Protein backbone atom coordinates (compact mmCIF):
# COMPACT_ATOMS: atom_id res chain seq x y z
CA UNK A 1 0.00 0.00 0.00
CA UNK A 2 1.30 3.40 -0.92
CA UNK A 3 1.12 6.08 1.77
CA UNK A 4 1.28 9.86 1.68
CA UNK A 5 4.92 9.89 2.70
CA UNK A 6 5.82 7.66 -0.25
CA UNK A 7 3.89 9.88 -2.68
CA UNK A 8 5.77 12.90 -1.36
CA UNK A 9 9.13 11.17 -1.53
CA UNK A 10 8.53 9.99 -5.12
CA UNK A 11 7.32 13.48 -6.06
CA UNK A 12 10.55 14.86 -4.63
CA UNK A 13 12.62 12.48 -6.76
CA UNK A 14 10.54 13.45 -9.82
CA UNK A 15 10.97 17.17 -9.04
CA UNK A 16 7.25 17.76 -8.67
CA UNK A 17 5.77 19.84 -5.86
CA UNK A 18 2.23 18.64 -5.21
CA UNK A 19 -0.72 20.38 -3.61
CA UNK A 20 -2.55 18.66 -0.76
CA UNK A 21 -5.48 17.59 -2.96
CA UNK A 22 -3.05 16.21 -5.56
CA UNK A 23 -1.29 14.13 -2.92
CA UNK A 24 -4.61 12.55 -1.89
CA UNK A 25 -5.68 11.97 -5.50
CA UNK A 26 -2.41 10.40 -6.59
CA UNK A 27 -2.16 8.31 -3.45
CA UNK A 28 -5.52 6.73 -4.29
CA UNK A 29 -4.92 6.38 -8.03
CA UNK A 30 -1.38 5.04 -7.70
CA UNK A 31 -2.61 2.49 -5.16
CA UNK A 32 -5.28 1.34 -7.65
CA UNK A 33 -2.80 1.00 -10.50
CA UNK A 34 -0.15 -0.69 -8.33
CA UNK A 35 -2.64 -3.21 -7.04
CA UNK A 36 -3.64 -3.95 -10.65
CA UNK A 37 0.05 -4.31 -11.59
CA UNK A 38 0.42 -6.93 -8.85
CA UNK A 39 -1.34 -9.21 -11.32
CA UNK A 40 2.14 -9.92 -12.70
CA UNK A 41 2.97 -11.79 -9.49
CA UNK A 42 0.70 -14.59 -10.72
CA UNK A 43 3.45 -15.47 -13.19
CA UNK A 44 6.62 -17.32 -12.38
CA UNK A 45 9.32 -15.49 -14.31
CA UNK A 46 12.39 -16.66 -12.37
CA UNK A 47 13.91 -18.36 -15.42
CA UNK A 48 12.76 -15.83 -18.02
CA UNK A 49 15.24 -13.43 -19.62
CA UNK A 50 14.01 -9.81 -19.75
CA UNK A 51 13.34 -8.18 -23.14
CA UNK A 52 14.75 -4.66 -23.06
CA UNK A 53 14.49 -4.19 -26.82
CA UNK A 54 11.72 -5.58 -29.01
CA UNK A 55 14.10 -5.80 -31.95
CA UNK A 56 17.66 -6.91 -31.25
CA UNK A 57 19.98 -3.94 -31.29
CA UNK A 58 23.70 -3.36 -31.39
CA UNK A 59 25.58 -0.40 -30.07
CA UNK A 60 25.76 2.26 -32.77
CA UNK A 61 29.01 4.16 -33.18
CA UNK A 62 30.00 6.80 -35.66
CA UNK A 63 33.32 8.07 -36.79
CA UNK A 64 34.71 10.75 -34.51
CA UNK A 65 34.83 13.61 -36.95
CA UNK A 66 33.70 17.21 -36.82
CA UNK A 67 30.33 17.99 -38.29
CA UNK A 68 28.02 20.95 -38.36
CA UNK A 69 25.82 21.48 -35.31
CA UNK A 70 23.06 23.89 -34.40
CA UNK A 71 24.15 27.51 -33.94
CA UNK A 72 24.24 29.04 -30.46
CA UNK A 73 21.45 31.36 -31.53
CA UNK A 74 19.29 28.41 -32.57
CA UNK A 75 20.01 26.46 -29.40
CA UNK A 76 19.10 29.44 -27.23
CA UNK A 77 16.04 30.36 -29.28
CA UNK A 78 13.61 28.55 -26.95
CA UNK A 79 15.33 29.37 -23.66
CA UNK A 80 13.03 30.89 -21.03
CA UNK A 81 15.92 33.03 -19.80
CA UNK A 82 19.30 33.73 -21.39
CA UNK A 83 22.18 36.13 -21.16
CA UNK A 84 25.36 36.61 -23.22
CA UNK A 85 25.06 33.33 -25.10
CA UNK A 86 24.24 31.27 -22.01
CA UNK A 87 21.14 29.75 -20.39
CA UNK A 88 20.33 31.77 -17.29
CA UNK A 89 19.28 29.96 -14.11
CA UNK A 90 18.70 31.03 -10.50
CA UNK A 91 21.66 30.94 -8.15
CA UNK A 92 22.65 27.33 -7.42
CA UNK A 93 25.36 27.86 -4.75
CA UNK A 94 24.45 30.29 -2.00
Amino acid at each position, binding site marked *: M*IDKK*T*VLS*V*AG*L*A*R*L*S*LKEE*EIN*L*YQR*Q*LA*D*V*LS*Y*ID*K*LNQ*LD*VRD*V*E*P*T*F*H*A*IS*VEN*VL*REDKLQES*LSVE*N*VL*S*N*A*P*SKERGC*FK*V*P*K*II*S
Partner: protein
Amino acid sequence: MKPEFRTIKQIKNDKEKSCVLIKKMSEIIKQNDINIGAYVHLSLESALLCARVAPKDKTLSGIPVAIKDNICEQGIPTCCASKILEGFKPPYNATVIKKLKEAGAIPFGKTNMDEFAFGSSTETSFYKITKNPWDKTRVPGGSSGGSAAAVASGEAVCALGSDTGGSIRQPASFCGVVGLKPTYGRVSRYGLIAFASGLDQIGPITRTVEDSAMLLQTIAGYDPKDSTSVDIPVPDYSKSLIQSVKGLKIGVPEECFAQGLDKEIEDSVKEAINLLQKLGGKIIKIQLPHMEYSVATYCIIATAEASSNLARFDAVRYGYRAEEPEGLGAIEMVSKSRSIGFGSETKRRILLGTYVLSSGYYEAYYIKAQKVRTLIKEDFEDAFKVCDCIIMPTSPTPAFKIGEKIKDPLSMYLSDIFTISINLAGLPAISVPCGFTSSGLPIGMQIIGRAFDEEMLFKIGFAYQSNTRWHTMKPE
Protein backbone atom coordinates in the same frame (compact mmCIF):
# COMPACT_ATOMS: atom_id res chain seq x y z
CA MET B 1 -17.26 24.93 -47.61
CA LYS B 2 -17.73 21.19 -47.72
CA PRO B 3 -15.05 18.94 -46.25
CA GLU B 4 -12.78 17.03 -48.62
CA PHE B 5 -12.95 13.26 -48.62
CA ARG B 6 -10.50 12.53 -51.38
CA THR B 7 -7.61 10.12 -51.04
CA ILE B 8 -4.00 10.82 -51.97
CA LYS B 9 -4.53 8.87 -55.17
CA GLN B 10 -7.65 10.85 -56.13
CA ILE B 11 -5.91 14.17 -55.53
CA LYS B 12 -2.99 13.07 -57.67
CA ASN B 13 -5.38 12.02 -60.44
CA ASP B 14 -7.29 15.31 -60.22
CA LYS B 15 -3.98 17.18 -60.65
CA GLU B 16 -5.23 19.97 -58.44
CA LYS B 17 -2.60 22.66 -57.86
CA SER B 18 -1.15 22.28 -54.39
CA CYS B 19 -1.52 25.98 -53.49
CA VAL B 20 -5.22 25.85 -54.38
CA LEU B 21 -5.67 22.65 -52.42
CA ILE B 22 -3.91 24.00 -49.35
CA LYS B 23 -5.94 27.23 -49.35
CA LYS B 24 -9.11 25.19 -49.72
CA MET B 25 -8.14 22.84 -46.87
CA SER B 26 -7.39 25.77 -44.61
CA GLU B 27 -10.81 27.33 -45.38
CA ILE B 28 -12.52 24.03 -44.61
CA ILE B 29 -10.64 23.79 -41.32
CA LYS B 30 -11.43 27.38 -40.37
CA GLN B 31 -15.14 26.75 -40.92
CA ASN B 32 -15.51 23.24 -39.58
CA ASP B 33 -12.85 22.69 -36.98
CA ILE B 34 -14.73 24.70 -34.38
CA ASN B 35 -16.97 21.62 -33.98
CA ILE B 36 -14.19 19.03 -33.95
CA GLY B 37 -11.08 20.69 -32.54
CA ALA B 38 -8.68 18.49 -34.47
CA TYR B 39 -5.97 21.13 -34.90
CA VAL B 40 -3.91 23.07 -32.40
CA HIS B 41 -1.94 25.01 -34.98
CA LEU B 42 -2.31 25.73 -38.69
CA SER B 43 0.79 26.67 -40.62
CA LEU B 44 -0.76 28.05 -43.79
CA GLU B 45 2.06 30.45 -44.67
CA SER B 46 4.78 27.87 -44.25
CA ALA B 47 2.66 25.31 -46.14
CA LEU B 48 2.23 27.68 -49.08
CA LEU B 49 5.94 28.40 -49.08
CA CYS B 50 6.64 24.69 -48.90
CA ALA B 51 4.23 24.09 -51.82
CA ARG B 52 6.14 26.59 -53.96
CA VAL B 53 9.52 24.98 -53.40
CA ALA B 54 8.41 21.34 -53.11
CA PRO B 55 9.75 18.99 -55.77
CA LYS B 56 7.17 18.14 -58.45
CA ASP B 57 6.51 14.66 -59.86
CA LYS B 58 7.36 12.93 -56.61
CA THR B 59 5.13 10.35 -54.92
CA LEU B 60 3.46 12.85 -52.59
CA SER B 61 3.90 16.10 -54.55
CA GLY B 62 1.45 18.71 -53.30
CA ILE B 63 -0.25 16.44 -50.76
CA PRO B 64 -0.97 18.24 -47.48
CA VAL B 65 -0.24 16.13 -44.40
CA ALA B 66 -1.48 16.92 -40.89
CA ILE B 67 1.14 16.28 -38.22
CA LYS B 68 0.65 15.20 -34.62
CA ASP B 69 1.82 17.88 -32.22
CA ASN B 70 4.70 15.75 -30.90
CA ILE B 71 6.64 15.60 -34.18
CA CYS B 72 9.17 18.41 -34.56
CA GLU B 73 8.94 20.70 -37.55
CA GLN B 74 11.53 23.43 -37.81
CA GLY B 75 10.12 26.84 -36.87
CA ILE B 76 6.56 25.54 -36.37
CA PRO B 77 5.12 25.41 -32.82
CA THR B 78 5.38 21.84 -31.50
CA CYS B 79 3.93 21.61 -28.01
CA CYS B 80 2.93 18.00 -27.33
CA ALA B 81 -0.39 19.59 -26.34
CA SER B 82 1.30 20.63 -23.09
CA LYS B 83 1.59 23.93 -21.29
CA ILE B 84 5.21 23.12 -20.53
CA LEU B 85 6.10 23.33 -24.24
CA GLU B 86 3.81 26.21 -25.16
CA GLY B 87 5.46 28.33 -27.85
CA PHE B 88 8.31 25.85 -28.45
CA LYS B 89 9.58 26.10 -32.02
CA PRO B 90 11.98 23.27 -32.85
CA PRO B 91 15.26 24.37 -34.42
CA TYR B 92 15.31 21.24 -36.61
CA ASN B 93 13.04 18.90 -38.57
CA ALA B 94 12.15 15.36 -37.50
CA THR B 95 13.42 12.83 -40.04
CA VAL B 96 9.84 11.99 -41.07
CA ILE B 97 9.18 15.69 -41.83
CA LYS B 98 12.38 15.89 -43.88
CA LYS B 99 11.36 12.77 -45.80
CA LEU B 100 7.82 14.07 -46.40
CA LYS B 101 9.19 17.33 -47.77
CA GLU B 102 11.66 15.51 -50.00
CA ALA B 103 8.72 13.52 -51.40
CA GLY B 104 6.89 16.78 -52.21
CA ALA B 105 4.35 16.54 -49.37
CA ILE B 106 3.28 19.64 -47.45
CA PRO B 107 3.09 19.52 -43.64
CA PHE B 108 0.37 22.06 -42.95
CA GLY B 109 -0.85 21.87 -39.40
CA LYS B 110 -0.39 20.38 -35.96
CA THR B 111 -3.09 18.09 -34.60
CA ASN B 112 -4.35 17.81 -31.06
CA MET B 113 -3.32 14.91 -28.83
CA ASP B 114 -3.27 13.74 -25.25
CA GLU B 115 -0.57 15.68 -23.43
CA PHE B 116 2.77 14.01 -24.22
CA ALA B 117 0.72 11.20 -25.84
CA PHE B 118 -0.45 10.02 -22.39
CA GLY B 119 -4.03 8.89 -22.87
CA SER B 120 -6.60 7.17 -25.01
CA SER B 121 -9.14 9.94 -25.47
CA THR B 122 -7.44 13.28 -26.40
CA GLU B 123 -9.05 14.72 -23.26
CA THR B 124 -5.75 15.41 -21.48
CA SER B 125 -4.56 18.03 -23.98
CA PHE B 126 -3.76 21.36 -22.31
CA TYR B 127 -5.47 23.16 -25.19
CA LYS B 128 -8.83 21.53 -25.86
CA ILE B 129 -10.80 18.33 -26.14
CA THR B 130 -11.11 16.95 -29.67
CA LYS B 131 -14.50 15.49 -30.56
CA ASN B 132 -15.33 12.39 -32.52
CA PRO B 133 -16.66 13.46 -35.96
CA TRP B 134 -19.23 10.63 -35.87
CA ASP B 135 -20.70 11.70 -32.54
CA LYS B 136 -19.51 14.93 -31.00
CA THR B 137 -20.41 13.84 -27.49
CA ARG B 138 -17.77 11.13 -27.77
CA VAL B 139 -13.97 11.02 -27.76
CA PRO B 140 -12.01 10.50 -30.98
CA GLY B 141 -9.68 8.11 -29.16
CA GLY B 142 -6.12 8.93 -28.28
CA SER B 143 -3.46 9.92 -28.19
CA SER B 144 -3.43 10.69 -31.94
CA GLY B 145 -7.10 11.72 -31.68
CA GLY B 146 -6.56 15.02 -33.51
CA SER B 147 -4.92 13.29 -36.47
CA ALA B 148 -7.67 10.64 -36.71
CA ALA B 149 -10.49 13.18 -36.30
CA ALA B 150 -8.93 15.44 -38.97
CA VAL B 151 -8.84 12.61 -41.53
CA ALA B 152 -12.29 11.29 -40.56
CA SER B 153 -13.94 14.72 -40.81
CA GLY B 154 -12.39 15.57 -44.17
CA GLU B 155 -10.14 18.24 -42.62
CA ALA B 156 -7.04 16.36 -43.77
CA VAL B 157 -6.24 14.01 -46.62
CA CYS B 158 -3.86 12.06 -44.40
CA ALA B 159 -1.93 12.54 -41.19
CA LEU B 160 0.95 11.30 -39.08
CA GLY B 161 0.44 10.03 -35.56
CA SER B 162 2.55 8.17 -33.02
CA ASP B 163 1.75 4.88 -31.31
CA THR B 164 3.16 3.76 -27.95
CA GLY B 165 0.36 1.48 -26.76
CA GLY B 166 -2.22 1.88 -29.51
CA SER B 167 -2.28 5.64 -30.02
CA ILE B 168 -2.60 5.41 -33.81
CA ARG B 169 -4.79 2.30 -34.12
CA GLN B 170 -7.33 2.99 -31.36
CA PRO B 171 -8.26 6.52 -32.59
CA ALA B 172 -8.28 5.24 -36.18
CA SER B 173 -10.76 2.59 -35.04
CA PHE B 174 -12.92 5.11 -33.11
CA CYS B 175 -12.98 7.48 -36.09
CA GLY B 176 -13.46 4.97 -38.92
CA VAL B 177 -10.12 5.49 -40.67
CA VAL B 178 -6.96 3.45 -41.32
CA GLY B 179 -4.13 3.64 -38.77
CA LEU B 180 -0.80 1.87 -39.06
CA LYS B 181 1.81 1.24 -36.40
CA PRO B 182 4.92 0.09 -38.25
CA THR B 183 7.43 -2.39 -36.81
CA TYR B 184 9.58 -0.82 -34.09
CA GLY B 185 12.67 0.49 -35.88
CA ARG B 186 11.06 0.75 -39.32
CA VAL B 187 10.49 4.52 -39.07
CA SER B 188 12.98 6.93 -37.54
CA ARG B 189 11.97 8.42 -34.19
CA TYR B 190 14.44 11.30 -34.58
CA GLY B 191 12.47 14.45 -33.83
CA LEU B 192 9.56 12.64 -32.19
CA ILE B 193 9.23 13.98 -28.65
CA ALA B 194 9.74 10.74 -26.77
CA PHE B 195 7.12 9.16 -24.51
CA ALA B 196 8.45 5.59 -24.06
CA SER B 197 11.43 5.26 -26.38
CA GLY B 198 11.31 1.46 -26.47
CA LEU B 199 7.70 1.39 -27.68
CA ASP B 200 7.06 4.63 -29.65
CA GLN B 201 6.69 4.47 -33.40
CA ILE B 202 5.47 7.09 -35.91
CA GLY B 203 2.89 5.96 -38.47
CA PRO B 204 0.26 7.13 -40.97
CA ILE B 205 -3.47 7.75 -40.50
CA THR B 206 -5.33 7.68 -43.81
CA ARG B 207 -8.68 6.89 -45.42
CA THR B 208 -7.44 3.85 -47.34
CA VAL B 209 -4.86 1.09 -47.02
CA GLU B 210 -3.41 2.22 -50.33
CA ASP B 211 -2.72 5.71 -48.92
CA SER B 212 -1.23 4.14 -45.82
CA ALA B 213 1.23 2.20 -47.98
CA MET B 214 2.19 5.36 -49.86
CA LEU B 215 2.86 7.30 -46.67
CA LEU B 216 4.84 4.48 -45.07
CA GLN B 217 6.89 4.16 -48.25
CA THR B 218 7.89 7.79 -47.80
CA ILE B 219 8.70 7.82 -44.09
CA ALA B 220 10.23 4.33 -43.63
CA GLY B 221 13.92 3.54 -43.71
CA TYR B 222 17.16 3.54 -41.79
CA ASP B 223 18.24 6.77 -40.13
CA PRO B 224 21.71 7.12 -38.59
CA LYS B 225 20.23 9.80 -36.30
CA ASP B 226 18.08 7.17 -34.52
CA SER B 227 20.16 4.42 -32.96
CA THR B 228 17.12 2.12 -32.79
CA SER B 229 16.32 2.53 -36.47
CA VAL B 230 16.90 -0.74 -38.31
CA ASP B 231 19.10 -0.94 -41.40
CA ILE B 232 17.15 -3.26 -43.67
CA PRO B 233 15.75 -2.43 -47.12
CA VAL B 234 12.24 -0.97 -47.44
CA PRO B 235 10.22 -3.02 -49.94
CA ASP B 236 8.07 -1.49 -52.66
CA TYR B 237 4.74 -1.53 -50.84
CA SER B 238 2.70 -0.84 -53.97
CA LYS B 239 3.47 -4.41 -54.99
CA SER B 240 1.63 -5.75 -51.94
CA LEU B 241 -1.59 -4.00 -52.97
CA ILE B 242 -3.08 -7.02 -54.68
CA GLN B 243 -6.62 -8.20 -54.13
CA SER B 244 -5.80 -11.77 -53.16
CA VAL B 245 -5.52 -13.41 -49.78
CA LYS B 246 -5.70 -16.90 -51.25
CA GLY B 247 -3.95 -19.48 -49.09
CA LEU B 248 -2.92 -16.98 -46.40
CA LYS B 249 -3.14 -18.38 -42.90
CA ILE B 250 -5.07 -15.96 -40.67
CA GLY B 251 -4.67 -16.46 -36.92
CA VAL B 252 -7.62 -15.58 -34.69
CA PRO B 253 -6.78 -15.42 -30.96
CA GLU B 254 -9.50 -16.99 -28.83
CA GLU B 255 -8.75 -14.71 -25.86
CA CYS B 256 -9.85 -11.61 -27.78
CA PHE B 257 -13.39 -12.81 -28.22
CA ALA B 258 -13.92 -13.66 -24.58
CA GLN B 259 -15.84 -11.74 -21.92
CA GLY B 260 -15.67 -7.96 -21.94
CA LEU B 261 -15.84 -7.50 -25.69
CA ASP B 262 -18.72 -5.39 -27.01
CA LYS B 263 -21.15 -7.68 -28.86
CA GLU B 264 -21.45 -5.45 -31.94
CA ILE B 265 -17.66 -5.30 -32.23
CA GLU B 266 -17.42 -9.06 -31.90
CA ASP B 267 -20.00 -9.53 -34.67
CA SER B 268 -18.38 -7.04 -37.05
CA VAL B 269 -14.86 -8.43 -36.64
CA LYS B 270 -16.11 -12.01 -37.02
CA GLU B 271 -17.96 -10.99 -40.18
CA ALA B 272 -14.76 -9.44 -41.54
CA ILE B 273 -12.87 -12.66 -40.78
CA ASN B 274 -15.60 -14.64 -42.59
CA LEU B 275 -15.22 -12.40 -45.62
CA LEU B 276 -11.46 -12.97 -45.69
CA GLN B 277 -12.15 -16.68 -45.48
CA LYS B 278 -14.50 -16.43 -48.48
CA LEU B 279 -11.74 -14.62 -50.34
CA GLY B 280 -9.47 -17.62 -49.84
CA GLY B 281 -7.84 -17.06 -46.44
CA LYS B 282 -7.48 -19.99 -44.05
CA ILE B 283 -8.66 -19.31 -40.51
CA ILE B 284 -6.55 -20.78 -37.72
CA LYS B 285 -7.46 -20.58 -34.03
CA ILE B 286 -4.52 -19.44 -31.93
CA GLN B 287 -3.80 -18.53 -28.31
CA LEU B 288 -2.07 -15.51 -26.84
CA PRO B 289 -2.14 -16.62 -23.19
CA HIS B 290 -0.18 -13.69 -21.77
CA MET B 291 -2.22 -10.93 -23.40
CA GLU B 292 -4.13 -10.39 -20.17
CA TYR B 293 -0.86 -9.23 -18.58
CA SER B 294 -0.04 -6.71 -21.29
CA VAL B 295 -1.70 -3.66 -19.71
CA ALA B 296 0.06 -4.22 -16.36
CA THR B 297 3.39 -4.76 -18.15
CA TYR B 298 2.85 -1.65 -20.23
CA CYS B 299 1.93 0.46 -17.17
CA ILE B 300 5.36 -0.29 -15.73
CA ILE B 301 7.56 -0.06 -18.83
CA ALA B 302 5.84 2.91 -20.42
CA THR B 303 5.67 5.03 -17.27
CA ALA B 304 9.25 4.16 -16.31
CA GLU B 305 10.52 5.30 -19.69
CA ALA B 306 8.20 8.32 -19.69
CA SER B 307 9.41 9.52 -16.28
CA SER B 308 12.96 9.26 -17.52
CA ASN B 309 12.25 11.02 -20.83
CA LEU B 310 10.32 13.82 -19.16
CA ALA B 311 13.17 14.56 -16.76
CA ARG B 312 14.56 16.79 -19.53
CA PHE B 313 11.83 19.35 -18.85
CA ASP B 314 13.75 21.38 -16.31
CA ALA B 315 12.74 24.89 -17.46
CA VAL B 316 16.34 25.69 -18.37
CA ARG B 317 16.83 25.14 -22.10
CA TYR B 318 13.25 25.34 -23.34
CA GLY B 319 9.70 25.21 -22.11
CA TYR B 320 7.67 26.93 -19.46
CA ARG B 321 9.46 28.48 -16.50
CA ALA B 322 7.50 29.51 -13.41
CA GLU B 323 7.78 33.10 -12.23
CA GLU B 324 10.83 33.48 -10.05
CA PRO B 325 10.25 35.21 -6.76
CA GLU B 326 13.42 36.59 -5.22
CA GLY B 327 15.46 33.86 -3.55
CA LEU B 328 13.89 30.91 -5.41
CA GLY B 329 16.63 28.31 -5.80
CA ALA B 330 17.31 26.27 -8.92
CA ILE B 331 15.67 23.09 -7.59
CA GLU B 332 12.55 24.98 -6.50
CA MET B 333 12.45 26.66 -9.91
CA VAL B 334 12.50 23.25 -11.63
CA SER B 335 9.88 21.71 -9.30
CA LYS B 336 7.57 24.70 -9.51
CA SER B 337 7.82 24.90 -13.30
CA ARG B 338 7.16 21.19 -13.75
CA SER B 339 4.23 21.23 -11.33
CA ILE B 340 2.52 24.07 -13.18
CA GLY B 341 3.63 23.02 -16.67
CA PHE B 342 2.56 19.36 -16.60
CA GLY B 343 -1.08 18.28 -16.53
CA SER B 344 -2.65 15.76 -14.19
CA GLU B 345 -2.22 12.60 -16.30
CA THR B 346 1.39 13.49 -17.05
CA LYS B 347 2.18 13.96 -13.36
CA ARG B 348 0.47 10.67 -12.55
CA ARG B 349 2.61 8.81 -15.08
CA ILE B 350 5.80 10.52 -13.95
CA LEU B 351 5.03 9.54 -10.35
CA LEU B 352 4.24 5.94 -11.23
CA GLY B 353 7.33 5.70 -13.44
CA THR B 354 9.58 7.20 -10.78
CA TYR B 355 8.11 4.82 -8.18
CA VAL B 356 8.68 1.64 -10.22
CA LEU B 357 12.23 2.73 -11.04
CA SER B 358 13.13 3.77 -7.51
CA SER B 359 15.65 1.70 -5.60
CA GLY B 360 14.02 -1.23 -3.85
CA TYR B 361 11.27 -1.51 -6.45
CA TYR B 362 13.29 -1.69 -9.68
CA GLU B 363 13.59 -5.50 -9.64
CA ALA B 364 10.05 -6.08 -8.40
CA TYR B 365 8.46 -3.94 -11.06
CA TYR B 366 10.67 -2.89 -13.98
CA ILE B 367 12.71 -6.08 -14.41
CA LYS B 368 9.68 -8.26 -13.81
CA ALA B 369 7.73 -6.35 -16.48
CA GLN B 370 10.55 -6.79 -18.99
CA LYS B 371 10.45 -10.54 -18.24
CA VAL B 372 6.70 -10.72 -18.80
CA ARG B 373 7.34 -8.79 -22.00
CA THR B 374 9.46 -11.77 -23.11
CA LEU B 375 6.50 -14.10 -22.51
CA ILE B 376 4.18 -11.81 -24.50
CA LYS B 377 6.70 -11.66 -27.34
CA GLU B 378 7.08 -15.45 -27.30
CA ASP B 379 3.29 -15.86 -27.58
CA PHE B 380 3.43 -13.99 -30.88
CA GLU B 381 6.47 -15.94 -32.06
CA ASP B 382 4.60 -19.19 -31.39
CA ALA B 383 1.51 -17.90 -33.20
CA PHE B 384 3.51 -16.88 -36.26
CA LYS B 385 4.83 -20.43 -36.55
CA VAL B 386 1.33 -21.47 -37.62
CA CYS B 387 -0.12 -18.34 -39.26
CA ASP B 388 0.90 -15.45 -41.55
CA CYS B 389 -1.04 -12.74 -39.74
CA ILE B 390 -3.32 -12.28 -36.74
CA ILE B 391 -6.70 -10.55 -36.71
CA MET B 392 -8.47 -9.20 -33.64
CA PRO B 393 -10.60 -6.18 -32.71
CA THR B 394 -8.65 -2.92 -32.35
CA SER B 395 -10.58 -1.84 -29.27
CA PRO B 396 -12.96 -3.73 -26.95
CA THR B 397 -15.56 -0.93 -27.18
CA PRO B 398 -16.56 1.77 -29.66
CA ALA B 399 -15.77 5.44 -28.90
CA PHE B 400 -16.82 6.24 -25.33
CA LYS B 401 -18.41 9.46 -24.05
CA ILE B 402 -16.30 12.51 -23.30
CA GLY B 403 -15.66 12.49 -19.53
CA GLU B 404 -16.64 8.84 -19.11
CA LYS B 405 -13.20 7.46 -18.22
CA ILE B 406 -11.10 10.50 -17.51
CA LYS B 407 -11.34 10.19 -13.70
CA ASP B 408 -10.50 6.48 -13.70
CA PRO B 409 -7.00 6.02 -15.13
CA LEU B 410 -7.12 2.24 -14.92
CA SER B 411 -10.27 1.92 -17.04
CA MET B 412 -8.66 4.29 -19.56
CA TYR B 413 -5.49 2.14 -19.71
CA LEU B 414 -7.63 -0.98 -20.19
CA SER B 415 -9.22 0.45 -23.33
CA ASP B 416 -5.91 -0.33 -25.07
CA ILE B 417 -5.88 -4.02 -24.09
CA PHE B 418 -5.79 -5.28 -27.70
CA THR B 419 -3.20 -2.84 -29.00
CA ILE B 420 -0.62 -2.71 -26.19
CA SER B 421 0.85 -6.20 -26.55
CA ILE B 422 1.84 -5.41 -30.15
CA ASN B 423 4.01 -2.49 -29.01
CA LEU B 424 5.60 -4.66 -26.33
CA ALA B 425 6.48 -7.22 -29.02
CA GLY B 426 7.54 -4.48 -31.49
CA LEU B 427 5.34 -5.86 -34.28
CA PRO B 428 3.52 -3.98 -37.08
CA ALA B 429 -0.28 -3.68 -36.97
CA ILE B 430 -2.93 -1.82 -38.92
CA SER B 431 -6.49 -0.88 -37.91
CA VAL B 432 -9.01 -0.96 -40.76
CA PRO B 433 -12.69 0.09 -40.53
CA CYS B 434 -14.91 -3.02 -40.52
CA GLY B 435 -18.40 -1.85 -39.61
CA PHE B 436 -20.59 0.39 -37.48
CA THR B 437 -22.55 -0.06 -34.30
CA SER B 438 -26.34 0.34 -34.38
CA SER B 439 -25.82 3.88 -33.06
CA GLY B 440 -23.52 4.73 -35.97
CA LEU B 441 -20.09 4.47 -34.34
CA PRO B 442 -17.19 3.07 -36.38
CA ILE B 443 -15.64 -0.31 -35.55
CA GLY B 444 -12.07 -1.26 -36.40
CA MET B 445 -10.28 -4.56 -36.86
CA GLN B 446 -6.61 -4.96 -36.29
CA ILE B 447 -4.32 -6.95 -38.56
CA ILE B 448 -0.95 -7.86 -37.02
CA GLY B 449 2.08 -9.13 -38.91
CA ARG B 450 5.57 -10.51 -38.29
CA ALA B 451 8.30 -7.95 -37.61
CA PHE B 452 9.01 -5.90 -40.77
CA ASP B 453 6.20 -7.61 -42.68
CA GLU B 454 4.07 -4.53 -43.27
CA GLU B 455 3.48 -5.94 -46.77
CA MET B 456 1.22 -8.61 -45.25
CA LEU B 457 -0.90 -5.94 -43.54
CA PHE B 458 -1.28 -4.00 -46.77
CA LYS B 459 -2.10 -7.14 -48.74
CA ILE B 460 -4.91 -8.21 -46.40
CA GLY B 461 -6.14 -4.67 -45.72
CA PHE B 462 -6.25 -3.85 -49.42
CA ALA B 463 -8.10 -7.07 -50.30
CA TYR B 464 -10.60 -6.31 -47.52
CA GLN B 465 -11.17 -2.70 -48.60
CA SER B 466 -11.54 -3.79 -52.24
CA ASN B 467 -14.50 -5.90 -51.13
CA THR B 468 -16.14 -3.60 -48.57
CA ARG B 469 -17.30 0.02 -48.40
CA TRP B 470 -16.83 0.86 -44.69
CA HIS B 471 -13.87 3.13 -45.49
CA THR B 472 -15.95 5.21 -47.92
CA MET B 473 -18.54 6.24 -45.28
CA LYS B 474 -18.50 9.85 -44.11
CA PRO B 475 -19.77 11.42 -40.90
CA GLU B 476 -22.61 13.91 -41.36
